[in-house]
């Protein structure tokens, strides 16, 4: 059965009403649109299924905060391994209407792929109160960002060697004693701030330090906490668990700061489209962003008051957006090779 486009799902009369209110007082109209959406969502039979890669213990807290605001609307989180896995599952599920997840949270390149395959709903997010920065395209919303930082073990890094910025990461004393993620996301993002020659040179010099390469920045943080490595380039949120448990780990923020944003979209074939839209719109509110950040340690740089926005204040944030995916892929492929080869090739 073909489903109607989402904007007809709430009811034409309700939208017309919300539109009229919007013309009068925008905030009121947005609230009215959200309330109407919540009523429509509460009438949907199943929960909206949300594919996201955070541990369920974390997303339980996000959903609990959502349900405090909207008690009659159900969201079920299903944890898949990562963005690539989520994107693949969305592609596969599209062959069987009714089996699709409702919401997917992935990175820019994955969301671009899904939209290219016509798998995402086109939603007027501004009508629900989101800014153009949060929702630059109708198919997706930027709900949070993971920021790259220097991570070091204070018991192993002498006071005179405490890093302050990017160049300190290239100190020869870290030869064979540093580590990073196997995938070169932060280095590829740097091309946007530094341009090609400097970013390539930096990545090659870092790779020549023979860094250990980890499958996950969580593992990297654990190895730094354990003392296997004194220093590394990791993600802020992946370091928080070991810090919270008392490990002697410190963080240095960087300028420019590469980030990987979490783009969240509603599936075109979502079985519970109103719930899905309500949840995504709520994640982009101050309340939703704080709940998501408290649970996953990844916050929105676009909403004032989050720790992430505070951390990134005054810094140049660099990241390729969904529409720049082709360019980003080329850098990623090239820099992955540089890291894997220990700096011997630059492609």
């Amino acid at each position, binding site marked *: 059965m073909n489903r109607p486009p989402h904007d007809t799902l709430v009811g034409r009369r309700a939208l017309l009403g919300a539109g009229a209110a919007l013309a009068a007082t925008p905030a009121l109209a947005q609230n009215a649109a959200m309330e109407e959406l919540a009523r429509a969502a509460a009438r949907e039979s199943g929960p909206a*299924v949300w594919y996201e890669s*955070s*541990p*369920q*213990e*974390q997303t*339980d807290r996000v959903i609990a905060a959502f349900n405090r605001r909207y008690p009659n609307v159900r969201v*079920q989180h*299903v*944890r*898949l*391994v*990562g*963005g*690539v*896995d989520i*994107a*693949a*599952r969305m*592609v*596969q*599920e*599209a*062959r*069987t209407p009714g*089996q699709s997840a409702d919401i997917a949270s*992935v990175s820019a*390149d*994955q969301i*671009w*792929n899904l939209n290219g395959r016509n798998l995402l709903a086109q939603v007027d997010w501004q009508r629900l109160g989101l800014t153009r920065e949060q929702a630059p395209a109708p198919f997706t919303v930027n709900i949070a960002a993971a920021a790259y930082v220097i991570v070091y073990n204070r018991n192993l890094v002498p006071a005179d060697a405490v890093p302050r910025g990017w160049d300190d990461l290239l100190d020869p004393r870290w030869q064979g004693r540093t*580590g990073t993620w*196997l*995938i070169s996301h932060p280095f590829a993002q740097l091309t946007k701030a530094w341009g090609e020659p400097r970013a390539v040179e930096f990545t090659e010099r870092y790779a020549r330090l023979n860094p*250990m*390469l*980890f*499958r*996950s920045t*969580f593992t990297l*943080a*654990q190895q730094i*906490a*354990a*003392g*296997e*490595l004194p220093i590394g380039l990791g993600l802020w949120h*992946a*370091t*928080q*668990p*070991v810090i919270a*448990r*008392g*490990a002697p780990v410190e963080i240095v923020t960087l300028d420019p700061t590469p980030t990987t944003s979490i783009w969240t979209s509603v599936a075109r074939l979502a079985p519970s489209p109103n719930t899905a839209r309500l949840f995504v719109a709520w994640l982009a509110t101050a309340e939703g962003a704080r709940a998501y950040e408290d649970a996953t340690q990844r916050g929105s740089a676009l909403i004032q008051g989050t720790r992430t926005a505070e951390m990134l204040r005054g810094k140049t944030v660099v990241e390729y957006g969904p529409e720049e995916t082709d360019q980003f*892929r080329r850098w*990623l492929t090239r820099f*992955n090779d540089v890291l*894997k080869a*220990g700096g011997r090739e630059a492609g």
Partner: protein
Amino acid sequence: MGSLRRGLPLLLLGLLLAYLAVVPLVLLTLSSFKPEGFLDDEGWVLDNWRAVYLGRDLWPMLRNTVVFALGSTAAALLMGTLLAWLVERTDLPGRGIVRVMIVLPLATPPLLLAIAWVLLLSPRTGFFNFALMDLLGLQTAPLNIFSMGGMIFVEAMVLLPSVYLMLAPAFRNMDPNLEHAAFVSGASVWTVVTRIVLPLLRPAILAAAVFMLIVCLVVFDVPGAIGMPVRVFVVSTLIYIWATESPTGLPLYGQVAALAALFVVVLVGLGVVYQQLSLQGQRFATVSGKGFRPRPMPLGRWRWPAAAMVWVYFFLATIAPLAVLLVTSLLPFQTRITWEVLGGLTWENHLAFLGNPRLVLAVKNTAVVALVSATAVALLSLLVSWAVVRSKARGRYVLDLLAFLPMGIPGVMIGVALITVYLTFTAIPIYGTIWILVVAYTTTFIAYGTRTTNGVMLQLHRDLEEAASVAGAGYWRILRRIVLPLALPAVVAVWVWVMAHAARELSTALMLHGRNNTVISTLLWNFWSGGDGPRAAAVGVWLMVALFLLVGCWQLLARRQEAR
């Protein structure tokens, strides 16, 4: 009509195996010719094959893979065969407890075992390295787990219990009269082992070797945790990157599928070699109508040195990694183990696991998945081996190959195939449920099951079944009253092996994770990937406790059986 009735069970078995093995294989092949590897992609291309086989990544990694696979297989086979012989055929002291201890590491997810060895042998925080530096007055760590040698060592430890379980039933079924006759004729222990024991066990040893080689081609946990950080890449690293971290934003299933073709070709080649060498099955038959009672071979003055060697092995393979995991599970965060940190042990990680709201559901799901998969694989293996070894039907070796084929298909592609199949055939509503895991594990583990039961079936002489047949017994009666009791140790070994592997298996469980099929290993992953290594270790410890009880009960029953 009669021949149809006789051939019907074989046909049904063939259809079932074809469904399990051929469907993923066909989807895999189709996927390799699709632009992005999804069946719904438009058009057909050769790009994936070109990218894999003309690309610069594969061949250097293949060299590493061959070294890793051969090294790990040789080490596991050598130690596994020696241990199986010592435990099953000699008067080694404490054989009961040794049996339990050998298979105990089966409960440890390989990822956790790799982490344990990193904690023991890493150059900067490894417990053993610090102990050796203190003991020998060294300035630098003498051992480095982050190396090809480290990968081989840990993978051999992972594989060894499986080798033991594959070989132990074959050793147990050998008629001791052959060895006694040799001793009476003045042969030495060496002569008996090399001229009688090993040749008689050739099918079982060969089966184990082939199985382990293929496992090493596709396994990722150990190369990922130990080799990848220091750029010792193997082919499974490529599969991991293509499937989960591809720079395109979507998994490169087409390339994974094209690469898997290489595994399938290697596997079919090894399978054919194995079949050729096992064709003269009667040469290996040692269990006949003549009754025998297993009598352990006296080791004489080697008894205690052999026991010491076995206990050193236990210490390295079981006690040390388990102890380090146990201590890690009691730490607030993963760190180098020193006397100081032992002062801050906490039960918090165990309490967090035991208080997890999804625990009850996960335990129930794990138990059902493990029990059903283990029973299905054990029964199917028995039937397939019986048909392959006993039947004279022309297609019987195809059955064997079908049971073996899924091993060459990377787990990620079996997952993709099953998702596609059950999203397409919605009349079988198992997508997102525990039953899709049962199908996946039955498909994946049937290869192990049939390798084990084939080896034992070749040892059973036809005369027992022929006598029963002459006396008027039908197929099912012969199977129930003669074949099953004689092959029971192997069938139970398969059952225990599959139980343990299904309970700890992670990559397929994650690949097929849906709305209603959380299992213990996905809980473990939740902790691990959320930065809680010690809590993941706590899950591992409880998994081990559960399997220890299972293996303990199995051994208790086995001893009662022997005593009768």
